[in-house]
């Protein structure tokens, strides 16, 4: 389903509704630890390649470890929150702790070409598709 952003005013809302409709998507469903843990991730497709984005606010690059093996990606690390001395807490909605999550994507990716970038609290993993997995065009006689 290609998103056509013809109307710029509605574009963000359409995108948000599209994100909602892919919540129940079973694309990633069959892996052993695909759901339910932190950090929440979104998978996007751009052409043949995949982009994984995760929201990791308050976590520095050095506190996250990303490992790739075959089609499995593991993201682990810890989030810390400092409150300062003698602080009286009025409201606490943020959470701190460790996280360790592994997901298996159903397409073959090239582990050498995986790039990770962490900026402004968003961790983005660029997963290029393996050459041998790309569909080949067949000429019709």
């Amino acid at each position, binding site marked *: 389903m290609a998103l056509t952003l013809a109307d710029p005013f509605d574009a963000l809302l359409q995108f948000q509704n599209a994100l909602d409709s*892919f919540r129940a998507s079973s694309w990633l469903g069959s892996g052993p630890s695909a759901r339910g843990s932190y950090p929440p991730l979104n998978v996007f497709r751009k052409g043949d390649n995949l982009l994984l984005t995760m929201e990791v*606010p308050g*976590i520095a690059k050095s506190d996250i470890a990303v490992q790739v093996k075959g089609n499995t990606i593991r993201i682990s690390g810890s989030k*810390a929150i400092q409150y*300062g001395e003698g602080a009286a*807490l*009025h409201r606490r909605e943020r*959470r*701190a*702790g460790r996280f360790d999550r592994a997901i298996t994507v159903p397409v073959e990716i090239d582990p050498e070409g995986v790039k990770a970038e962490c900026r402004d609290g968003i961790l983005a993993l660029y997963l290029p598709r393996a050459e041998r997995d790309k569909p080949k065009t067949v000429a019709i006689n």
Partner: protein
Amino acid sequence: MAQSQELEVQEKKELVSKEEATVPARYFMPHTDIFETDDALNVILEVPGVERKDVEVSVENDVLKIDAKIGFKNYEGLEPVYTEYNVGHFTRSFTLSNKLDQQQISAHLQDGVLTLVLKKAKEAQPRRIAID
């Protein structure tokens, strides 16, 4: 205690308000910690995906309003395949007490966390009384 436990996903809180924005989009309320020290009130909001130039903090009529917009351009050409969280602009407002010095508010944004420090008005700071 919180350091060694496993983190769980918190759903984003969507904003439901009586007034509509002129540009249709869904807004979310950032998760916020508020704590008070001797000389200031700290308000910490999680706004992942927001750059410094897209944050607006204002105080009007004793109401602190935070508006943080995400860069939608980064998502152009991307088709969602599997999603667990939604994205959108953040907004939240708090009513301030008159104990805060509304002229002195500092803001700092790093790694998607916006920290606001609101200094307390001089009269509200605790005074130590020396005992002879």
